[in-house]
């Protein structure tokens, strides 16, 4: 390790510039159309994940608006019943599987290596593979809607409704195959995030110095690892029930429809927290930076994050209170459901204490975070209400539940995501987002959201069931529904402004310097946008807020001795991040893309014939062989 003084990069002399140019060439991604398919750098893949997820969000949002249009007045005829069911199912599924998880993963893939001072992820090619799987699966899933063959059995696809008998056609098959396929992408991202966080942290970044966002990503990744197999197994079983006449979920043949619900919700409930936990990390990053002080209660926050992750696996039966399960069994889950509010409360307490007495800078990311507090706490309160069996049995399958889960999903995930976009955009793009547009966007989204979803609580209490395509005028639900639709339009304008801001500011935004918000974490220690190699020299850290302490110390220590002519990054120990070895990372290659196409052919074909299982398997196998062909540096070594 070498001391390089306060400067953040190589010496500004001829030799220093030459060294930097060599490293940058080594880490460069090929240009051009064909080059695009070979990129493996985490910054490229992370940006793609986020951009694709935002496009899917926009599409699913338009579907939400379509439903609101249909429901704005009784006996409306904008959508017929079957189309409504398809739109509703695709909206829910796309929001959960195509937008929320991948957006969080994308942000994590982009930021984690930068935040921990690494040069890339542990498995860059796997990263690229995951992205193509997600892209192809997502596009095919969404295309089913304009083709009129979309699934229509709701985002949780309950059997027997989704059995062949009651849902003929290709819709449910598309759901089962594509969801299984897309979850492969979630799993690959989770595996490599875990390995990256455990093994590639900058020397000195022991676990107690890791940014809270990185902790949050770690918890999210473990949750994905435990939750996804359950939905993959469930959808594979349903696929077989429909394709090769197995009878896992067919009650008449001795199968169990309730098994589907158990398997689905064992994934489905943690899923909500998989989205929410990284959002907590984003909120903490923003709160720390805009309060300009270290987070209050680091240990308590980590404890709370990990507890939320664990307890979220013990709640799944609260989605099944009305299925006639034994009373004593239900009581366990009622207790656990109420219990999860405790770590959530701890987190909110830590944030309030961090902000208490600080000179808060009310910049746009902070405004999104304040909106998050208001909306998420409301959603949390209705959450405690529906956690209780007697109350839940009254409002089950009504609009009260639709209001509750939009409060937690939009408040708990979308608002923090917006905060994250405004906060890290300067780092990723090198320009600031427009402040004025940002403030309008927060304001409109906050007002629009509450106008759209608050009345749904009352509608639910009045008995309006969810998943109905229309209602009779005599029910007197017209006014509140109209209000909700107006709110949804205002909300859409609010989010739309941010979309426009993202495009506009990429060309016209003020140029951002390295650390425009004076934040303490390592991603701000490199250029904006980051170098191809992230850091000209990998940093060594001495505490949990290096960018605030380096100027005090007057010097910065970096890792020396890494080769410049091949992609190398430091490997460190799991707990204390002591230097252990060097990992040689692979360069650009088209094979992950080709493998993803081969696997897609298999999965897509499965909708039509079980033989495609073999075709997909062998196709993927052959491409994997090329992918794993020994690379040059190893042969030379």
């Amino acid at each position, binding site marked *: 390790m070498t001391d390089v003084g306060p400067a953040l990069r190589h010496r500004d002399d001829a030799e220093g510039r030459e060294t930097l140019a060599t490293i940058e060439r080594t880490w460069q991604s090929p240009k051009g159309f064909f080059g695009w398919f070979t990129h493996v750098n985490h910054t490229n893949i992370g940006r793609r994940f986020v951009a694709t997820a935002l496009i899917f969000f926009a599409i699913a949002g338009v579907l939400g608006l379509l439903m609101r249009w249909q429901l704005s007045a009784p006996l409306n005829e904008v959508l017929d019943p079957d189309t409504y069911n398809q739109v509703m199912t695709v909206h829910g599924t796309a929001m959960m599987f195509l937008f929320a998880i991948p957006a969080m993963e994308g942000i994590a893939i982009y930021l984690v290596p930068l935040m921990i001072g690494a040069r890339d992820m542990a498995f860059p090619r796997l990263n690229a593979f995951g992205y193509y799987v997600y892209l192809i699966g997502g596009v095919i899933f969404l295309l089913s809607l304009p083709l009129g063959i979309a699934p229509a059995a709701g985002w949780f696809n309950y059997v027997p409704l989704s059995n062949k008998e009651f849902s003929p056609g290709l819709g449910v098959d598309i759901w089962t195959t594509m969801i299984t396929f897309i979850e492969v992408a979630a799993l690959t991202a989770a595996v490599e995030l875990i390995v990256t966080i455990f093994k590639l942290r900058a020397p000195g970044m022991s676990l107690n110095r890791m940014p809270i966002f990185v902790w949050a990503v770690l918890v999210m990744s473990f949750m994905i690892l435990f939750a996804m197999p359950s939905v993959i197994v469930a959808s594979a079983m349903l696929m077989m029930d429909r394709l090769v006449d197995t009878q896992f979920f067919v009650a008449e043949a001795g199968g169990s429809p309730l098994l589907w619900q158990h398997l689905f919700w064992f994934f489905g409930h943690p899923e909500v927290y998989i989205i929410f936990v990284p959002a907590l990390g984003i909120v903490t990053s923003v709160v720390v930076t805009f309060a300009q002080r270290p987070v209050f209660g680091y*240990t308590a926050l980590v404890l709370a994050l990990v507890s939320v992750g664990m307890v979220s696996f013990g709640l799944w039966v609260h989605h099944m209170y009305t299925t006639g399960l034994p009373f004593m*069994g239900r009581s366990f889950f009622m207790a656990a459901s109420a219990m999860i509010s405790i770590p959530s409360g701890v987190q909110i307490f830590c944030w309030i204490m961090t902000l208490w007495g600080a000179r808060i800078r009310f910049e746009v990311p902070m405004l999104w975070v304040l909106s998050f507090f208001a909306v998420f706490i409301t959603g949390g309160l209705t959450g405690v209400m529906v956690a209780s069996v007697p109350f839940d049995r009254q409002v089950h399958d009504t609009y009260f539940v639709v209001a509750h889960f939009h409060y937690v999903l939009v408040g708990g995930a979308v608002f923090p995501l917006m905060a994250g976009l405004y906060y890290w955009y300067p780092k990723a793009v090198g320009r600031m987002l427009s402040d004025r547009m940002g403030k309008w966007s927060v304001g409109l989204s906050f007002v629009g959201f509450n106008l759209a979803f608050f009345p749904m609580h009352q509608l639910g209490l009045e008995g309006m069931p969810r998943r109905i395509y229309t209602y009779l005028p005599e029910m007197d639900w017209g006014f509140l529904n109209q209000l909700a639709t107006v709110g949804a339009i205002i909300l859409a304008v609010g989010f739309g402004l941010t979309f426009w801001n993202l495009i506009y500011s990429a060309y016209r935004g003020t140029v951002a310097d390295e650390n425009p918000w004076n934040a303490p974490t390592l991603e701000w220690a490199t250029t904006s946008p980051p170098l191809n190699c992230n850091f000209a020299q990998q940093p060594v850290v001495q505490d949990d807020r290096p960018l605030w302490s380096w100027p005090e110390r007057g010097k910065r220590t970096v890792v020396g001795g890494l080769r410049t002519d091949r992609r190398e990054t430091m490997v460190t120990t799991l707990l*204390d991040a002591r230097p252990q070895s060097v990992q040689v990372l692979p360069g650009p290659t088209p094979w992950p893309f080709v493998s993803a196409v081969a696997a897609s052919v298999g999965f897509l074909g499965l909708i039509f014939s079980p033989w495609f299982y073999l075709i997909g398997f062998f196709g993927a196998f052959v491409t994997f062989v090329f992918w794993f062909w020994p690379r040059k540096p190893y042969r030379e070594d």
Partner: protein
Amino acid sequence: MQAESDPQQDDLILAKQEGREALSAWAGWVMAPAAWALHQGIGYAMVPWLCALGTRWPYHALTVFAVGLCIGGALMSRKALRRSRHIRPEHSRMRVRMMALIGLMFSAAAFGGILVEYLPSFLIDTCNGVDR
């Protein structure tokens, strides 16, 4: 004359030491949540069986086992916390302390969770809602 220490050698020694203490460092993190999950999962699954059996003893035994696991996690974390006093360098000591403290708090929380799920069972008839 004292031999000058080789930083790379030091790192290797410390890395090995870290590997040895990893088990106690993670004990509370793993044992306590596992205790709570086992208690909830097995307890939930055994309700129809308890009803058929007409006794709750297996459930009480399960609770005792789970509480024992929590206590085990807490003890190992406490041991790690005590040992942390002698650990150098400073940031390793702080890291061990943090992990041990979280392990202890996890154990306490899991104990609370088990209790909260256990106590109501006395008020509910095991056979209530069971298909017979």
